């Protein structure tokens, strides 16, 4: 008969010492949850609106030019890139690479800088800055 011990539980935000590695790990979860809930809800709404016809679509499209619509879209774009870059970092780390303190920290910071840069570039392009 196994001597059953309490399974270890995950530590909450409060007990970590803040640093790039833990911040990116937590942001990975938050951005993932954001994409899952807000992103997929919007994707569903968007596809239903396209299927619904011109009128249904213009209701949704009209909102994306308002300030709150832009906040959601820019936020989702950033969450997408952050989760993407951080996800790639996780796949690399799954192979056992990048656990040395310096490389790990540099990788974490790179995902943040990368996601901000990619979001800024994409929206600059979208807003017609390069035309």
């Amino acid at each position, binding site marked *: 008969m*196994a*001597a*059953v*011990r309490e*399974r270890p*539980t*995950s530590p*909450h935000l409060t007990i970590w010492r803040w640093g790039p590695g833990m911040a990116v790990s937590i942001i990975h*979860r938050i951005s*993932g*949850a954001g*994409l*899952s809930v807000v992103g*997929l*809800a919007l*994707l*569903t709404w968007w*596809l*239903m*609106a*396209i*299927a619904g*016809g*011109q009128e249904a*679509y*213009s209701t949704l*499209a009209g909102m994306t030019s308002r300030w709150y619509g832009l906040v959601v879209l820019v936020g989702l774009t950033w969450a*997408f890139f952050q989760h*993407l870059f951080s*996800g*790639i970092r996780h*796949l690399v780390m*799954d192979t056992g690479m990048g656990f040395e303190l310096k490389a790990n920290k540099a990788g974490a910071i790179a995902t943040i800088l990368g996601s901000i840069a990619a979001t800024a570039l*994409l929206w600059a*392009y*979208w807003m017609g800055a390069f035309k």
Partner: protein
Amino acid sequence: MSLGDSASDVGKVRGLGSARAGGTDWLAERVSSVALLLLGAWFLASLLFLPKLDQRTLVEWLRSAAGAVPMALFVIVGFWHAVDGLKQAVDDYVHGEVGRWFVNTLILFVAVAGASLCLFALGKIAFGAAA
């Protein structure tokens, strides 16, 4: 030893090691993440390079196999990955077997409903009468 049974013999005696089906979930999440790497890039590139994002253009795009098929895959894999990812957070932070089961099942139901709505919309666009 299956992926879902990754505890060592000592770990089993101590009641530690794999939380039942963890290994399979872990791998499935990585496989879907690699698929989303491709599909997400495709989705973003499509939005960037479509001539316009009005309803007529989008319908035309989603009536073609080149639009509809990757979009259907993006929806399916996206919701799948979201369920896997949210489950990880729920398993870590919702304590108690019953609560955990309830929240995870609720997420699964909502995700299946959302994905079904998306696929219905895509079917309607692709197979419906031309606008």
